[in-house]
């Protein structure tokens, strides 16, 4: 396993690789969207078509969960999540920057114990292959869902915990904790396992691992797209469970 440079600041540990990854991903999302939406026309062509396709695709997701008028409110949020996760997943397949270190670097938190494990220092990888990023995203979405439900109708929100029977309260609490946990672990584990297998294949003989490598990179692209979609769908499911006015 490769090491990551870490900076300690005010008692917190910052992972430099993750910060570089998230910043580059966010900048790329902004750049893509700006480039694809320049010179908008009523009759779209070229780049604008592509952006409209993405938005229509996500509109299909939000309309599935909520009624059309309310769904429009969450559309931009869902598109942002989708584009961020999609580009983050795909970046790790395309670019991986690893450097080699042979001495200790105290500033970056590269210690002697770490170097015994591995000499490789990762400078760029998928931000979503780090569990902190996905946990932060999933718990932020969960918090948003809870507050949206709470502000909409506190009575209904708290009433939900004792539905249909009061003794189900512990089950509901476990459910609310399990949702963001699996939401985060699902995305992280898929991308992380993919990157580790790429690293393992890279370490082998090229004559033996070239074909599996190509196959796995193709599969990684597929997994990245599917997981970005599923992350968005689940985020909308969790939000709609709290804000929908059904039953």
């Amino acid at each position, binding site marked *: 396993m490769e090491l990551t440079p870490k900076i300690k600041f005010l008692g917190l540990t910052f992972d430099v690789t993750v910060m570089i990854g998230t910043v580059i991903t966010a900048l790329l999302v902004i750049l893509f969207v700006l480039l694809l939406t320049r010179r908008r026309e009523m009759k779209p062509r070229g780049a604008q078509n592509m952006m409209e396709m993405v938005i229509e695709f996500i509109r299909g997701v939000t309309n599935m969960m909520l009624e059309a008028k309310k769904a429009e409110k969450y559309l931009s949020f869902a598109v942002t999540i989708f584009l961020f996760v999609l580009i983050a997943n795909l970046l790790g397949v395309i670019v991986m920057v690893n450097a080699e270190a042979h001495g200790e670097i105290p500033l970056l938190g590269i210690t002697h114990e770490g170097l015994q494990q591995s000499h490789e220092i990762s400078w760029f990888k998928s931000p979503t292959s780090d569990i902190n990023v996905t946990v932060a995203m999933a718990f932020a979405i969960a918090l948003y869902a809870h507050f949206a439900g709470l502000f909409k109708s506190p009575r209904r929100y708290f009433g939900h915990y004792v539905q249909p029977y009061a003794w189900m309260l512990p089950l509901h609490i476990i459910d609310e904790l399990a949702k963001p946990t699996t939401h985060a672990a699902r995305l992280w584990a898929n991308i*992380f*396992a993919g990157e580790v297998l790429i690293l393992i294949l890279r370490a082998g003989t090229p004559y033996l691992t070239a074909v599996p490598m190509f196959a796995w990179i193709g599969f990684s692209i597929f997994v990245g797209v599917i997981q970005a979609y599923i992350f968005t769908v689940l985020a909308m499911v969790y939000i709609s469970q709290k804000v929908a006015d059904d039953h």
Partner: protein
Amino acid sequence: MDMSLAVLAGGIMIAFGALAAGIGNGVLFSRYLEGIARQPEAQGKLFGQSMIALGLVEALPIISIAFGILVLFGIIGG
């Protein structure tokens, strides 16, 4: 923990992850094939839906595999 035990634990986690993914995907795609055998015109619709279900089914085994990798490389529980 003894290092060899950690390796054994990681190996077992990865193995059961693969086993579970095999069973889950087997059930999923056998139903998908049954579906298109009954209604060949629904293939396009079913393919998209089954791919989404694949992403959902794959998640739990791959979480086990990811933690197995972490144990195997001695990052946690070593």
